[in-house]
């Protein structure tokens, strides 16, 4: 240690504890003042200003991108919902609540060494091949048999949608080519050509199906 290291040693008589106590007391007013004023500014004024602007510029999105059909809210464009009928395209498996519970998002959180994940995927793959009349060794897109991060994934991969076309067309008595064209119209490419992944929104595709031809329950 060299001597010129120590130009700012506090005077001996002031102990560290007394220095701290005096400082804390002196800083109490700015601390409390800043907390109150900035909490109001950032937690109250800021959200309200943003709210007013958002309502003016993008009112639909601000309200949750809700889809209204015949006067009733049938869901949100951004939120996946469960489909099990043969005449609808099916979304990915979901771990949100009991499946697509949009008031309780969630994932499986199974690690790769967890046997439950392998079991769940194996069962989902077998079901998928059965539903879509695929041979035993046919490749299945991985998104069709794994749960998403949110449990509310609104989309599936275009490959997944393509494999479901024959089933949906049969159930709806539509030509496969017509359904395939509908799917193609609903494929969203990567944003700006390079961001994210290509995808098909299941709810919007199924809404379009309902407009194209009557489904049948079952």
């Amino acid at each position, binding site marked *: 240690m060299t001597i010129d290291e120590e130009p700012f040693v506090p005077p001996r008589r002031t102990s560290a504890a007394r220095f701290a106590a005096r400082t804390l007391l002196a800083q109490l007013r700015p*601390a409390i003042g*800043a*907390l109150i004023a900035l909490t109001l500014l950032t937690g109250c004024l800021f959200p309200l200003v943003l709210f007013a602007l958002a309502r003016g510029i993008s009112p639909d999105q601000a309200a949750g991108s809700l889809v209204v059909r015949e006067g009733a809210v049938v869901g949100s464009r951004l939120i996946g919902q469960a489909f099990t009928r043969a005449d609808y395209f099916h979304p990915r498996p979901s771990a949100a609540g009991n499946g697509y519970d949009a008031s309780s998002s969630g994932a499986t959180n199974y690690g790769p060494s967890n046997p439950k994940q392998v079991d769940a995927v194996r069962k989902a793959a077998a079901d998928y091949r059965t539903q879509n009349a695929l041979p035993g060794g046919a490749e299945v*897109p991985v998104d069709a048999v794994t749960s998403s991060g949110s449990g509310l994934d609104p989309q599936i991969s275009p*490959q997944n949608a393509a494999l479901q076309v024959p089933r949906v067309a049969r159930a709806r008595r539509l030509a496969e080519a017509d359904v395939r064209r509908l799917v193609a119209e609903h494929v969203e490419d990567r944003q700006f050509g390079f961001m994210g992944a290509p995808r098909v929104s299941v709810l919007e595709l199924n809404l379009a199906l309902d407009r194209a031809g009557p489904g049948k329950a079952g």
Partner: protein
Amino acid sequence: MRWIEYIAFLSVVVALVWPVGGYLARVFEHQPTWLDPLLRPVEARLHRLMGVTLDQEMSAGVYTLSFVLFGLLGAGWLLLLLMIQQGLPGGPADHYLTTPMTADLAANTAISFATTTTWQAYGGETTLRYATDLLGLVSQNFLAGAAGLAVGIAFIRGLARENSATLGSFWVDMIRAVLWVLLPLSLAGGLVLVWQGVPLNFAAYTQAHTLEGAAQAIAQGPVAALEMIKNLGTNGGGFFNVNAAHPFENPTPLTNFLELLSIAVLPASLTATLGRMTGRPRAGWVLLGVMVALFAAGLAICVLAEAATPPQLAGLHLAGGNMEGKETRFGVGGSVLAAVVTSNGATGSYNSMHGSYQALGVLVPLVNMLLGEVIFGGLGTGLCGMIMMTLIAAFLGGLMIGRTPAYLGKRITVHETQLTILYALLTPAVVLTLTSIALATRAGQAGLVTNTGARGFTEVMFAYASSMANNGQNMAGLNADSLFYNATTAVAMLAGRFGLGALILALAGRFAAQLRLAITDGTLPNDTPQFGALVAATILLVGGLSFLPALALGPVAEALSR
């Protein structure tokens, strides 16, 4: 295609470093900016209210105590709000709030948000009132983030000033960080997010009737008010349980890109702020180069691990990478980018479930946090961590050539070395001790409700690494809402925020008091690629020495066990 997204991301970050870093330097050196006509009057009013002045100066000790006091007051306010939130008016309806707000969960959450960790042992849509979200979480996101930036600026001043007893004023810096940096960016970015689909309302949860005739309750809320600031302030706590994986928080690849930029750009730009304020711009570029190189290395490892067909699913004839816990719109590429940005950026806003990553995939975010969040890192604190590692590198380099070690003309003598080494040791000491305690006790083991074995070990270590790094992301297979985890993660969060913060500011005070050494032939240059390589090697060396044995028991064991 994902490589193009990665190159685009890093290019935008690097392109913004110089202009944004320059703007930050102007703001904190009180030079004119184009926002002055609007913000100076607000600032003056706040100063009058608080009894501070623009030219106020503080010693390192007073700066530290102000920082700690403000953080603890914020935690106290949030604790109060959380305890009374059942009685607050507004949505969501009571029956959706199924997570009981126990005293230990409230205290953990309060400390978590006041330290920018924003670790969440609860799910947002099943726990919090909108009023708590705004007056508690959103505001603490601003304030804690601004406090972190203030500390970073004070540290830069320590290196920039000569023969000075002071580092600036915490209050002036913190207010400038809110008004000139965080508020305008949150407002502009928030509008883009709403346009892309992030909701902003105060409505009750929507009751939808699905196409198949089922009832679906859709959670709503002022999501967009939180979304930008949680990233800009490198906080990261989500509005919803699954954070940025939720389509309402992160509806499109564009929002993902923007949210990740808002994590990385400000911390990266502080390298240029350092360069400008110390008059050594090339030294700033060297630190940025180290950050980008380490970032790219982690990204490559993680994406290769996740894009391959998961080995445990081989034989099931699946096409594609590991999509368990990942969203279709981001794909493996956008998910991994978020994992690497959030784990480097001290921001918990993951968009995929790290708990379902492959062993080597999750190793990357874990290591990023254990290295001390030096790659971009937390707002303000990230640059400090990087410089701490740089000081060790300068020390090693100085010893090699037999000179007094120095960085940017500031000598690293006995006291500086002590502070630096304490800083480097605090993270392993806290993380490894708490991990051992958790694994050795029933209360700790009780959290492993989803996965066991090496995976369980990783989950526990991940939790403490995340808390200590004030990151907040988790492997959600661990059930952390218990008295044990609420208490122990809070200890790590406090140590990571105020323990490391005090060491940073103490060192800044010592540097500010020094004169600057003249550059001579014998000086180890701090602004060459060679020095950058030494810094990168030092970071990996210190991290490796501290954590390799523990990592061998977790992700490495899991990777080798198949």
